[in-house]
């Protein structure tokens, strides 16, 4: 999308009709609007948002009072509105107009072709297909309230922004609806079940599914909170590391070392416990079967000794002799003869091959139990020793850590250290609790996810389904598959975008930041922090925070542009849109301002800067002058007299322009053209 023209009628400070034409030139793609504080920068930005979406920025005061005060005093039912002419990516031209007259509101969009206006059906859907409402705030951007994107308050801003630019809002609503409809189908299936078997199972399945969702939510929240506390502790450790007291530094360094040792011991303890479980599952039968195996082996040996097991002669051999009627010595053995009957008698005690085989196997297994028992005994003993050592070390280290913490807390003359210590202790305590909650939630999830498939299989094995039940079962199964598709799409998209965003942010930071810093994103909390080349988090200055925030927004816009062609259509495709920004440069020093001002027009197709003189004078003007296509100045007209007030003026390219005019008929803001550098 490119903005072409805007007309404001009786909108806030803009009495009557005020209009402005935007630069749509490829090279001179900046429209610069000079506006001192209070003249209407924020109102102008909100005119665009209000026209397209009937929304306003958070810092826009009295959003229900849009009608200009003077127009209202002339006629309280005066109309007000905003018209915006824009072109889409294919060059088609449209006109969006939102107007309010008394209690009547209207919003329409027309396509302009060959001087004819054709109204578009479903204007809300249309404008959202050009730039979705949930992404709009990143393109029509309130720079003054940008705030920090890093740290405790920033992580939710980053997460929310990324999800909105990906179009998660709609997909998540779809997921919720599909889930609730699936449950409704399952309930209908249960209600149609006269036997009661299916409904019981279904009830249990629904309960387990609810528990699974709850566990997943808990796990997500815990992981975020854990990350938050870990970051907090890191911050505090940084401060303690760089505090003024040498003693505290030393004790703290020792403490960090002990904490690492404790972590290692806990890890070893965990491994030893896992090894114990493995040993039990591998060798428990061995241990318990040891005596029994010895008794059985003794029995076999004794019977062999007595010649009863195995029998001294083989059944197959005896049968062969009788069949052939020839003894192994070669003598004839006729049926009915004495030799024949004696040999036949031997069959009663002959051993059959299967029995021999079973005895061989039994002996082998019993011997194996004996051997394993000896081996496993050694392993169990080693494991027990290992666990005991870990327990001992953990107790010792915990005590040492407590003593070190008491030393630091006891630094009476250093109140700031004391309070840092208390904060650290609190954070550690909260962290431990969250880790316990996380552990429990994971265990519950594992158990429930294990139980669920078997219950579902039970249902499918039942054969008492009426046609009504079958219908709902089919619908529920289908809905479940669709749910999986949406979940998978959301999960894959979120994973992919983290890397891409941080690459882009670092690409900009490399150009702008003086120090060798880069941005790092915590994938759990979405906290973006600056780190140095040792990967240590930097305590950001206000300027650096703002720079990080601006580079993040630029990266979002770039990402959205790249996603424009994405057509999986579950996530909202991206948008190519103008970047309209109100007062972005805040705490940036001159050099940073210049860098950022110059980079923005290179990364977007169309830029509208709303800048007060403090923002644009110096490096900003120097860096963007050649890219300005159109330039305007907002002038506040005031009925009061100037009296002793100094003239409010700015200098643009050597010419003086008023920013305030006193002694006027009415109070209003007028938009005056300063220059058109493209026509």
């Amino acid at each position, binding site marked *: 999308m490119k903005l072409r023209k805007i007309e404001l009628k009786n909108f806030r400070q803009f009495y009557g009709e005020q209009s402005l034409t935007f630069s749509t030139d490829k090279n001179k793609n900046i429209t610069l609007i000079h506006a001192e504080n209070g003249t209407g920068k924020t109102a102008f930005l909100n005119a665009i948002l209000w026209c397209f979406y009937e929304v306003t920025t958070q810092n826009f005061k009295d959003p229900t009072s849009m009608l200009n005060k003077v127009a209202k005093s002339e006629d309280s039912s005066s109309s007000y509105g905003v018209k915006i002419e824009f072109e889409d990516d294919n060059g088609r031209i449209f006109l969006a107009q939102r107007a309010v007259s008394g209690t009547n509101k209207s919003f329409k969009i027309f396509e302009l072709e060959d001087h004819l206006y054709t109204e578009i059906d479903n204007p809300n*859907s249309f404008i959202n297909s050009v730039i*979705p409402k949930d992404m709009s705030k990143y393109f029509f951007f309130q720079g003054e309230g940008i705030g920090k994107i890093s740290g405790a308050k920033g992580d939710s801003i980053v997460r929310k922004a990324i999800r909105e630019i990906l179009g998660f809002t*709609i*997909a998540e609503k*779809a997921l919720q*609806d599909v889930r609730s409809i699936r449950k409704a189908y399952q309930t209908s299936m249960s209600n149609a079940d006269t036997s009661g078997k299916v409904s019981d199972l279904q009830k249990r399945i629904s309960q387990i599914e609810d528990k699974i969702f709850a566990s997943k939510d808990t796990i997500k929240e815990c992981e975020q909170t854990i990350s938050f506390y870990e970051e907090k502790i890191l911050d505090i450790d940084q401060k303690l590391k760089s505090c003024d007291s040498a003693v505290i530094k030393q004790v703290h360094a020792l403490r960090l070392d002990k904490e690492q040792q404790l972590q290692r011991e806990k890890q070893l303890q965990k491994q030893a416990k896992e090894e114990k479980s493995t040993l039990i599952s591998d060798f428990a039968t061995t241990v318990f079967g040891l005596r029994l195996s010895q008794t059985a082996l003794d029995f076999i040996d004794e019977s062999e000794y007595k010649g009863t097991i195995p029998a001294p002669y083989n059944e197959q051999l005896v049968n062969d002799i009788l069949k052939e009627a020839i003894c192994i010595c070669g003598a004839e053995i006729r049926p009915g003869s004495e030799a024949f009957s004696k040999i036949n008698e031997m069959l009663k005690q002959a051993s059959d091959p299967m029995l021999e085989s079973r005895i061989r196997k039994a002996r082998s297994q019993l011997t194996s139990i004996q051997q394993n028992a000896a081996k496993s005994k050694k392993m169990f003993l080693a494991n027990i020793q290992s666990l005991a050592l870990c327990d001992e070390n953990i107790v010792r280290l915990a005590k040492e850590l407590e003593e070190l913490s008491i030393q630091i807390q006891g630094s009476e003359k250093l109140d700031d250290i004391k309070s840092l210590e208390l904060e650290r202790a609190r954070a550690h305590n909260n962290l431990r609790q969250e880790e316990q909650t996380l552990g429990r939630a994971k265990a519950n999830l594992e158990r429930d996810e294990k139980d669920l498939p078997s219950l579902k299989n039970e249902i499918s094995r039942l054969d008492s389904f009426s046609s009504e039940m079958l219908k709902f079962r089919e619908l529920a199964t289908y*809905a479940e598959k*669709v749910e999986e598709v949406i979940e998978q799409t959301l999960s894959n998209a979120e994973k992919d975008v983290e890397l891409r965003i941080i690459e882009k942010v670092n690409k900009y930071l490399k150009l702008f930041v003086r120090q060798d810093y880069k941005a790092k994103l915590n994938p759990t909390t979405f906290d973006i922090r600056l780190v140095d080349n040792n990967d240590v988090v930097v305590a950001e200055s206000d300027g650096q925070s703002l720079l990080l925030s601006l580079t993040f927004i630029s990266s979002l816009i770039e990402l959205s542009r790249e996603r424009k062609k994405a*057509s999986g259509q*579950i996530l909202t495709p991206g948008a190519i849109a103008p970047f309209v920004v109100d007062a972005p440069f805040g705490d940036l020093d001159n050099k940073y301002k210049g860098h950022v001002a110059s980079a923005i027009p290179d990364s977007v197709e169309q830029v509208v800067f709303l800048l007060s003189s403090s923002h644009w004078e110096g490096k900003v003007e120097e860096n963007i002058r050649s890219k300005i296509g159109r330039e305007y100045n907002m002038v506040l007209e005031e009925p009061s007299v100037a009296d002793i007030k100094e003239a409010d003026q700015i200098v643009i390219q050597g010419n003086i322009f008023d920013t305030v005019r006193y002694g006027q008929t009415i109070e209003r803001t007028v938009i005056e053209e300063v220059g058109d550098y493209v026509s």
Partner: protein
Amino acid sequence: MTSFEELKKQILAAEKEASSPQNCYQNTARLIVNIERQAYYGDESENKRLSRIREVFSNEIKKKSTNEA
């Protein structure tokens, strides 16, 4: 050796395949998300949203049964 034109055709076909719904469930997900979009952006009633989604499911099941038959 594959000609440049042939290669271009193959890449475009692969892109088209990659961007089109791979199975009926993806297609249904896409339809449902479009319904959500219309409801969220204000051109469709929120109340009708759920009944339209149910309609999508019913139609897809009917289509599936017809294809199987």
